[in-house]
């Protein structure tokens, strides 16, 4: 097919009237010239013309042959089919609207889900050549990922055959003007390597991070510039206080660029400012900790496979400068082309979710297929006549499928509107449901629809159009010609098996969804109600910058709102505890969590001491080698008896990434007390049950301050925040009510059950309306038969049984299958999340009851109608 051919065909397809007129003119011109020739050879005017027409032959046949050469017959047919479909549907507007709405809902929720999936997983980052960007990690023998030291980063960046460039970064949360900012400290080549320019001012340059503390500069994201500084054009050159340190804003990044991770960033600082804003060890010390995240660009022509094998050879050389730890590690690469990489873990969460969404679409299709089936049966006479007039079956099927597509495309449009509404409302609801002080910590990537979303939507619409169109089309055109012409389809045309299958699918899907909802709901409630072993209602936590710590502790000690001040290196409910290995007597190595806490910790959080004693003030100050263990610890390790006075030998756990920031400082400790168990984990209660506390105090670096306050905790939190920011600007990084943190723990469950409940209820209403529609239709079809039965003495009760019985049997079968699927969901959830425990019969019983009631309700109206039929008029029914 040449380009010329396509051009001509398109022209003929788009301007059919013009193509036709041209053809007529051309042939008319021919005839006229022939007539002139005839005249010249001496014929009369009329004779010349008659002869010319005769010589020319059948004009219409020639026209037809020319049209065939255009090869756009299918367009003509499609055009006629579409016109016909429109006329038909305009005559049944209610039917058309219900179909469009049903498909719209199914497509809408799927498009919304796809938009989110697209924003995180599919959309390549707005940087130069995102597909050559890779995150580089050390991979330890035990499978843990860890970062790079400054020296190692330099090794990666220069002099290797794999990467053309690399940047190092560290994430940080800071407050600017009292608002949380997601910040990244980056090397100066960050923007240049990513090919990202500035919307305003300039970006960071390699000069900015040549040496520690060199340039106190910052670059804002476009959104932060808009939201925090009101899009002030005079922002360039202004100083902002970041952790009390003044930094000059030198530029604003372009609107589409939000960093390379899943949370959009607000602020970029040169990594060389680390010492000033991130109070910690000197990052540039050759022996500094391996805390840098490195993202590198593969050299052109180097494949990922080749890069991996080269890097594993190079690993020992890259590791230089850091003793021990990296000696037996290899290097792992992870593509950074999109915000989120598809991992096995991501898939286990996503697949059930996507399956649930797809199930709703399939149900919507099943409903529509049933409606189409009913409609095509009502059109049997028409179809029969067309078949007997010689219409090919394929031609009729095409006509019916065209009709489905004519319905599916407006359905897609409706779906798009619904998806936009669902997304904006969804985001609003999520934000409203979060404890207000946590809202600042949730960032959602921009969820704009793009070409991929539109393609998905149209493809889904077409597929669903075919899905709900094909079976009814095949069924409807199966009739035998002779009977069809008589309009007699009663006997062989009973697409019952198909209809039953569709109903079964619906009932299975909605019962599985409702059961899953129940499981999630029960577990969310269980977690919210669960006794955590702590009382956090009046507790406020403060994370401070190290250099202001002494001042903040002094201020808080004198603050009348603070009843008691305590400290802990781990903020419960916010992050997990680091872990260590213990070796006791002959027992093998076991793993335990640990925490450094001040003696007041047990009082502030109301963790009871079961036996022994608390840390003394002196032990806390000195960080003495004493320990308090949790009850579970004492029971497991010493079978409950005689924990006090035992000595714990301790070893660092190389797999615990948390122990990097909160390292194990002791190699052995004497147990002086046993405290009550706490359960602070969300996915994993084990992390907090086996727990060892070591002594510390509020002035020790790296601890979070916890205080029990007087009066309303939220008022107290706001007051304390205000007072601290006046007395010590930039000192406070985060200040929270611990109650909010604890509530945030059940949040993912709540989200999941809302989504699942929404889908489940949609599915149930689709099933109910589907069953209702099918039964009403069946009753209308079987009026005569039912009339005969009533005339022969059938009781109303037996008529109800006749009509509803089938549905009840189907519902039973669907429930069994739905329950099996629900069991699978439960298995999956309990393997992915330890918080989902033990088999719970209530969600299964509840889901089944809802579905059964729904089916009965849907069946009862049509069957009552059937039982009240008047036998005489029913028998006269056509």
């Amino acid at each position, binding site marked *: 097919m040449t380009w*010329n051919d396509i051009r001509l065909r398109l022209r003929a397809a788009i301007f059919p009237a013009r193509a036709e007129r*041209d053809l007529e003119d*051309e042939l008319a011109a*021919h005839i006229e010239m022939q007539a002139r020739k005839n005249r010249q050879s001496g014929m009369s005017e009329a004779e010349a013309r008659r002869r010319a027409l005769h010589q020319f032959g*059948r004009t219409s046949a*020639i026209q037809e*042959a*020319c049209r065939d*050469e*255009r090869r756009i017959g299918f367009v003509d047919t499609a055009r006629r089919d579409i016109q016909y479909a429109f006329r038909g549907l305009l005559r049944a507007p209610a039917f058309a609207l219900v179909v469009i709405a049903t498909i719209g809902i199914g497509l809408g929720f799927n498009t919304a889900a796809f938009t989110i999936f697209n924003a995180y997983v599919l959309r390549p980052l707005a940087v130069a050549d995102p597909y050559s960007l890779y995150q580089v990690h050390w991979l330890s023998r035990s499978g843990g990922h860890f970062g790079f030291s400054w020296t190692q980063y330099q090794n990666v960046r220069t002099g290797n055959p794999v990467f053309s460039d690399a940047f190092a970064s560290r994430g940080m949360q800071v407050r600017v003007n009292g608002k949380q900012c997601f910040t990244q400290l980056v090397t100066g080549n960050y923007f240049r390597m990513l090919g990202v320019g500035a919307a305003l001012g300039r970006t960071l340059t390699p000069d900015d991070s040549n040496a520690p503390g060199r340039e106190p500069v910052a670059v804002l994201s476009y959104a932060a510039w808009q939201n925090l500084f009101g899009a002030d054009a005079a922002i360039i050159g202004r100083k902002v206080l970041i952790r009390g340190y003044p930094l000059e804003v030198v530029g604003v990044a372009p609107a589409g660029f939000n960093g390379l991770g899943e949370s959009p960033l607000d602020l970029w600082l040169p990594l060389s400012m680390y010492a000033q804003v991130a109070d910690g060890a000197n990052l540039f010390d050759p022996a500094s900790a391996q805390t840098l995240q490195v993202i590198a660009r593969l050299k052109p022509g180097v494949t990922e496979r080749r890069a991996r094998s080269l890097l594993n050879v190079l690993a020992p050389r890259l590791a230089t400068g850091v003793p021990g730890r990296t000696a037996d590690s290899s290097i792992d690469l992870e593509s950074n082309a999109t915000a989120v990489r598809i991992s096995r873990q991501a898939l286990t969460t996503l697949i059930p979710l996507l399956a649930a969404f797809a199930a709703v679409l399939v149900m919507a299709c099943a409903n529509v297929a049933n409606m189409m089936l009913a409609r095509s049966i009502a059109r049997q006479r028409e179809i029969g006549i067309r078949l007997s007039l010689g219409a090919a079956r394929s031609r009729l099927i095409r006509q019916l499928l065209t009709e489905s597509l004519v319905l599916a495309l407006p359905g897609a449009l409706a779906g798009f509107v619904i998806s936009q509404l669902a997304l904006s409302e969804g985001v609003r609801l999520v934000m409203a449901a979060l404890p207000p002080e946590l809202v600042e910590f949730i960032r959602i990537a921009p969820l704009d629809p793009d070409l991929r979303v539109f393609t998905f939507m149209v493809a889904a619409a077409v597929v669903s159009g075919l899905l709900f169109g094909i079976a009814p089309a095949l069924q409807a055109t199966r009739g035998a010609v002779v009977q069809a012409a008589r309009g007699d389809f009663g006997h062989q045309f009973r697409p019952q098996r198909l209809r039953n299958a569709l109903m079964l699918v619906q009932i299975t899907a909605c019962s599985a969804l409702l059961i899953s909802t129940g499981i999630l709901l029960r577990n969310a409630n269980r977690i919210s109600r669960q006794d955590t072993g702590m009382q956090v209602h009046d507790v406020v936590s403060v994370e401070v910058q190290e250099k202001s710590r002494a001042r903040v502790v002094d201020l808080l000690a004198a603050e009348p709102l603070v009843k008691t001040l305590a400290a802990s290196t781990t903020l419960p409910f916010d992050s997990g505890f680091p872990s260590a290995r213990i070796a006791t007597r002959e027992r093998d190595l076991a793993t335990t969590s640990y925490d450094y806490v001040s003696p007041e910790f047990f009082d502030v959080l109301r963790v009871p001491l079961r036996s022994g004693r608390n840390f003394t003030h002196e032990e806390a100050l000195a960080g003495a080698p004493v320990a308090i263990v949790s009850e579970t610890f004492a029971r497991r390790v010493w079978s409950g008896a005689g924990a006090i006075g035992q000595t714990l030998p301790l070893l660092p756990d190389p797999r615990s990434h948390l122990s990097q920031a909160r390292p194990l400082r002791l190699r052995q400790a004497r147990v002086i007390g046993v405290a009550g168990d706490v359960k602070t984990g969300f996915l994993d209660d084990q992390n907090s049950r086996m727990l060892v506390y070591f002594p510390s105090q509020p002035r020790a670096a790296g601890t979070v301050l916890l205080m029990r306050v007087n009066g309303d905790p939220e008022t107290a939190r706001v007051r304390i925040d205000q007072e601290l920011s006046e007395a010590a600007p930039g000192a406070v990084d985060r200040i929270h009510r611990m109650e909010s943190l604890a509530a945030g723990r059940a949040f993912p469950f709540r989200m999941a059950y809302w989504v699942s409940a929404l889908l489940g209820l949609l599915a149930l209403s689709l099933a109910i309306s589907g069953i209702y529609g099918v039964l009403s239709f069946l009753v209308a079809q079987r009026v005569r038969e039912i009339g005969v039965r009533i005339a022969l003495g059938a009781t109303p009760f037996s008529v109800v049984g006749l009509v509803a019985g089938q549905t009840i049997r189907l519902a039973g079968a669907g429930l069994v299958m739905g329950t099996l699927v629900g069991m699978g969901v439960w298995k999956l959830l309990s393997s992915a999340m330890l918080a989902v425990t033990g088999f719970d019969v209530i969600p299964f019983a509840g889901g089944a009851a809802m579905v059964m009631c729904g089916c009965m309700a849907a069946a009862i109206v049509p069957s009552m109608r059937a039982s009240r039929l008047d036998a005489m008029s029913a028998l006269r029914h056509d």
Partner: protein
Amino acid sequence: MSDGKPRLDLLQGTLDLLILRTLRLTPMHGWAISERIQQISGEVLQVNQGSLYPALHRLEHRGWIKAKWGVSELGRRARFYELTASGRKQLEVEKENWAQLTAAIGRVLESA
């Protein structure tokens, strides 16, 4: 229509060759093409309009000829066809094919 001379129907596929050859020198409309073929062949070859116009449209779709609206000798709108560059190449190919075909048929007839 009978003026004594025998008329031959065109062989399948030869019409394309004749149209291309006719258009080699100057653009023409459909009637002129059929007249010209008849004239040059000494009224032996008769072009059937039922195959002429579909053939013209087919050649246009293949990109060998292109059509332009012009004014006929009668002062009426008429569609003039002209040979394109690729049509010129195609003409050479078809001529070559035709020569081979006739030569082959000739050899078969000679030998028999």
